[in-house]
């Protein structure tokens, strides 16, 4: 196979206020024709920057300091900007994470595909529209003529990513760079999108660079894997070899930290650092939370008819029947038990957790906590209720859920100030330090602001804040979704230890069945507001009864065991 892209000793520098930082250090990367290469690494590994450097679309602050980039024998470092714009989209193109943001929000998606086709003279004014619709058909968009007129906000995340793929492949490039193309998408959507990409690129004999933090994804779709760490390549090998016999320590650690069938919570931690396996503490059997016939309806929304008459376009006709986000579900959580709530976006799992948290009023149904009917207290006055301190929440994004102007100590003290009997600076500070020790946050970090903390440290602050009042139930809303796998491993272990130590119950909301299995005793699988399967974690994962659960499990890519 001949080499399509050859990157040698690439070094990229960024000018920052603290001087020049090398984001990528002497990276070598070779992509053969028709080959799919995975670039794997955690945040800050320089995997995205490498690809931006190849495309020469670095920010103004970044520059290629050293090395060479050759594409089909052409020196991309020496190419003029004009040559580069001709090359981008026609020879090398890119798809991005967060597909909705990657599309122009106020231009019809069909027009955006046309723009690229016309730019590279693949279509004229006569046939541009037909060719754009043809591209929509190729990426399996149903009703392409109609969807040509859609705006990104009218499409789902998965559909937006298909549009971005259509944009990228419209001019039949030789190389596709996919930068975390499925982050933030549901597992089944992820599988559909990745299968589509790999099918289209194979059919066209294209090469692909797949940039991802997910080892499973790289294993499932790549021929060769390049593992990066802090701007350097630590290992390059065939996909099978990397996973079967990783050579580098960092690769080994990443492999361990990635949840997969058969792995245990302790097993995620690097060898030698894991504490002894703790005997699983099952729930006491006494019911803590009881949810009966929970229902939440929303009125339907859509583009008003008037606007569609006046300006055309618009989504499907508005339907007057209310939409049921949660459709009469019942479940229980025992004291000391953790229950996983799994499902894809829009299945109603977040709405359910919001109602249990009493941030949202149910349309119908009953929520009792330890015998007290908390569902009867309106969400608006629940903050003042004496039951409020019994339920706490840990949020998905550790950064966004902290006040940027509060120090870590102030954030942890927040519930103490509002709802505890503790009075006086000293008492509260002492309690904060106790909590910080409990969650493993070094005490000298307590006076730092969120932007001075790492993702894992911020997650610890969020957890300390949630357990400050010794709650009986903690709702964990995808607490590790924004974290790197190695940090996720540590945080999951911490959550498990805390539960045993403090005797709390967890309601763990997640889309990742493997993560749920590690932490939860029982699992509920939700779809379209209803419970499709319920049972112990082992049973649901190893012998699922519902077709939907099977589909979910099979869609999760994982490294070979």
């Amino acid at each position, binding site marked *: 196979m001949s080499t399509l892209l050859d990157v040698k000793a690439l070094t990229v520098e960024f000018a920052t206020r603290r001087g020049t930082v090398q984001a990528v250090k002497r990276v070598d990367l070779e992509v053969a024709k028709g080959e799919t290469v995975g670039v794997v690494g955690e945040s800050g590994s320089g995997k995205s920057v490498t690809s931006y450097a190849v*495309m020469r*679309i670095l920010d*103004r602050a970044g520059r290629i300091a050293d090395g060479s980039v050759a594409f089909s024998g052409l020196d991309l470092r020496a190419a003029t900007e004009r040559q580069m*714009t*001709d*090359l*981008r*989209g*026609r020879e090398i*193109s*890119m798809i*991005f994470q*967060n597909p909705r*943001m*990657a*599309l*122009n*929000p*106020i*231009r019809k998606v069909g027009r955006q595909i046309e*723009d*690229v086709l016309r*730019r*590279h003279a693949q279509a004229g004014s006569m046939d541009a529209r037909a060719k754009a619709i043809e591209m929509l058909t190729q990426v399996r968009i149903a009703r392409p003529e109609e969807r040509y007129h859609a*705006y990104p*906000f009218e499409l789902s995340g998965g559909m937006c990513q298909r549009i*971005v793929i259509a*944009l*990228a492949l419209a001019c039949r490039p030789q190389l596709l760079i996919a930068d975390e193309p499925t982050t933030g998408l549901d597992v089944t959507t992820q599988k559909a999108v990745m299968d589509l990409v790999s099918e289209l690129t194979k059919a066209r004999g294209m090469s692909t660079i797949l940039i991802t933090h997910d080892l499973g994804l790289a294993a499932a779709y790549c021929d060769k894997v390049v593992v990066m760490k802090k701007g350097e390549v630590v290992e390059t090998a065939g996909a099978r070899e990397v996973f079967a016999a990783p050579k580098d320590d960092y690769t080994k650690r990443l492999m361990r930290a990635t949840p997969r069938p058969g792995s245990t919570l302790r097993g995620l931690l690097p060898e030698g650092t894991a504490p002894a396996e703790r005997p699983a503490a099952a729930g006491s059997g006494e019911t803590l939370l009881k949810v009966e016939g929970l229902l939440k309806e929303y009125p339907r*929304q*859509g*583009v*008003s*008819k*008037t*606007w569609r008459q*006046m*300006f055309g*376009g*618009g989504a499907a006709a508005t339907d007057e029947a209310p939409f049921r986000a949660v459709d009469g579900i019942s479940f229980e959580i025992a004291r000391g038990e953790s229950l996983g709530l799994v499902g894809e976006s829009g299945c109603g799992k977040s709405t359910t957790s919001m109602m249990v948290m009493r941030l949202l009023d149910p349309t119908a149904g009953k929520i009792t906590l330890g015998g007290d009917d908390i569902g009867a207290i309106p969400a608006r006055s629940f903050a003042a209720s004496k039951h409020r301190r019994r339920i706490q929440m840990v949020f998905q994004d550790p950064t966004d859920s902290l006040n940027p102007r509060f120090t870590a100590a102030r954030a942890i003290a927040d519930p103490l100030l509002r709802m505890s009997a503790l009075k006086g600076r000293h008492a509260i500070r002492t309690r904060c330090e106790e909590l910080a020790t409990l969650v493993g946050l070094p005490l000298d970090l307590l006076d730092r602001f969120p932007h001075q903390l790492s993702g894992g440290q911020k997650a610890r602050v969020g957890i300390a804040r949630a357990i400050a009042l010794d709650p009986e139930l903690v709702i964990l809303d995808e607490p590790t979704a924004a974290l790197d796998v190695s940090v996720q491993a540590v945080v999951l272990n911490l959550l498990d230890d805390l539960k045993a130590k403090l005797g709390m119950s967890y309601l763990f909301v997640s889309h990742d069945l493997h993560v749920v299995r590690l932490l939860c005793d029982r699992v509920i699988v939700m779809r379209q507001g209803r419970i499709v399967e319920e049972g112990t974690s082992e049973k649901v994962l190893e012998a699922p009864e519902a077709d939907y659960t099977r589909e979910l499990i099979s869609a999760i890519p994982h490294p070979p065991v």
Partner: protein
Amino acid sequence: MRAVARRLATIVPTLIGVVIVTFLLTRVLPGDPAAYFAGPTADQASIDQIRAALGLDQPLPVQFAAYVKDLATGNLGNALSTGQPVLTELAARLPASAELTLTALLISMSIAIPLGILAAVKEGSFIDHVCRVVTTAGVSLPVFFTGLLFVYVFYYLLGWAPAPVGRLDVYFTEPERITGFFTIDSLLAGDLETFRAAASQLFLPAATLALFSLAPIARMTRASMLSVLSSEFIRTARAAGLRSRTVILAYAFRNAMLPVVTTLGMVFSFLLGANVLVEKVFAWPGVGSFAVEALIQSDYAPVQGFVLAMALLYVALNLVIDLVYGLIDPRVRLEA
């Protein structure tokens, strides 16, 4: 059209509020119109007589009822200073103000928007600094100063501009009134001579106002463009190889337009009511100077009429802006 109708319905409470507030405010202001118009030598009896004739001796609720009744029939009262009905006065002066303001805004936009875009695209470059200097200078020079400076340089020293004597030199007759804008009316009448005269009268005051309004428009365009240019879909467009011209105009600028349109609306309504100083310097017969004079004389009817007319204009302007929003951004249509 239903959305527009619904939007219009929300105007009603605003207008009721405006009517009540303007009525009360004019009554609260110090000064007695009866005494003012009776003149300095009048005795108490004749002042009382004038007061009774104006209905000012009645209790406030009765006065208010009379005022609302007149409003309902389209009667805004008479301006005591000129003796003309307020409606006639406003109808004559509002187009003068509107013509001046719109021209100023057009000049301002045609300079400020390209300047803002360039400054954002080439952030930190020479053009960015030029943008900063020009806008800072424009906003920090008071309009009466720039106005006088322009008159001094272009009329007195260079003789390029005509004397600042209002909308039209005395040698010309006003064009037949169609829109009330002299430049447009003269063109419609096919009278190029009058058009040139009207345009030359218009240019200096409009330029004065434009200079002042450059700053908000250029700064908003720059800031809005900067934030859009750093967004992810611009990166996608670049990665797809689109020409920078397409990326900047078709992709970035259209997205950056919403805050710019908002600013334009604010600048327009601000200029329309607040260009009294320019009107004074150029002897422009606009509504601003009319209202100020009426206010000084405690002449209630014109002040009330002026505020009401401004409120109506402002409401209409906001409606137009909302509709423009919907045209620019399909997402806004959802909320309509």
